């Protein structure tokens, strides 16, 4: 039993390492494009709402806390608390997606989109002689939607996983001796939080 638990955990960590590399590729791409279009990236990032990004960071950190409390409750065999903390975690995840929806719709309205659909903003300064704006602005939003979108999909998957183990916990399928699924979904959830910890400063904060 003990060995099975350890083995599943190693498997989960291997998966998490591949997740780091998946997002890592995008981070490298973002870094290169930022180096190529420094001025455009600075101006584009001003269109993101820092308070909303900070709010979502706090929401995700709290969700990580409720998650780890869920795992702790599972370790202690406290079924009711496991379900309660998992539901709280799902709630935080929904708040996160709600804020994201609000941010996305604002960007769609403003035309802050990947190059092909980008609407020039009056504040855009990098233009050619004819007044056309540089590709760099849209490139910023291409990365923004790709990376926060992929992260959002991970949140969605997380909500399904959390619901699934909440139902199983409610049915009494876990005990002090067996709570591996709670632990592993917890690891996944913390990784989603960890990725956001890097996404937030990169998109919202760095000038």
């Amino acid at each position, binding site marked *: 039993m003990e060995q099975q638990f350890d083995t599943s955990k190693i498997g989960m960590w291997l998966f998490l390492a591949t997740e780091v*590399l998946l997002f890592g590729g995008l981070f490298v791409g973002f870094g*290169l494009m930022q*180096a190529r279009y420094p001025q455009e990236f600075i101006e584009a990032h001003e269109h993101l709402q820092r308070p909303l990004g900070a709010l979502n960071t*706090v929401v995700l950190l709290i969700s990580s806390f409720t998650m*780890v409390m869920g795992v702790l409750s599972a370790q202690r065999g406290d079924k009711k608390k496991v379900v309660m903390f998992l539901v709280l975690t799902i709630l935080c995840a929904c708040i996160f997606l709600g804020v994201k929806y609000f941010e996305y719709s604002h960007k769609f309205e403003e035309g802050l989109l990947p190059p092909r659909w980008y*609407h*020039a903003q009056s504040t855009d300064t990098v233009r050619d002689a004819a007044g056309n704006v540089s590709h760099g602005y849209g490139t910023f939003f291409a990365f923004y939607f790709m990376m926060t979108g992929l992260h959002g999909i991970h949140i969605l998957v997380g909500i399904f996983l959390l619901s699934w183990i909440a139902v199983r916990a409610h049915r009494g399928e876990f005990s002090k001796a067996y709570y591996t699924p709670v632990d592993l979904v917890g690891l996944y959830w913390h990784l989603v939080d*960890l990725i956001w910890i*890097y996404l937030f*400063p990169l998109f919202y904060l760095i000038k």
Partner: protein
Amino acid sequence: MSNSEQTSEHLHPHAHAKHHHGSAALYVRTLVALLILTAITVGASYIDFGAGNVVIALFIATIKATIVALFFMHLRWDKPVNAVIACAGFLFLGIFLMFDFIDFGSRDGLRPVNWDGKLPIETVAPATSGAAPAAEKK
């Protein structure tokens, strides 16, 4: 750790020895530390440190990520093999990043080879000051 936890540790020494390391109090402290660091990084973003901006933001993010991994993800108490896997992921990401930027550094800012020193102009829609040129494109 509270008394009740110590009692249960005596009752279930095996389960306890293997998995029970965290406590609610520790996790609360972890959360508070993470929130404080978030406040610091947001606050610092309103001050311009020039080239230091990126370094400060990523340094604080890395501290936060380490705290999450050590406490929330239990790496502090886990078998070392999990930490090795986690570090390997970041190590290879670091190698990837390093070689990309060495390459970037040798390319005169990713500009085309015939770059004339002016701005990289690959423009998109005509500038219409926030109006909606995409509708015209269709």
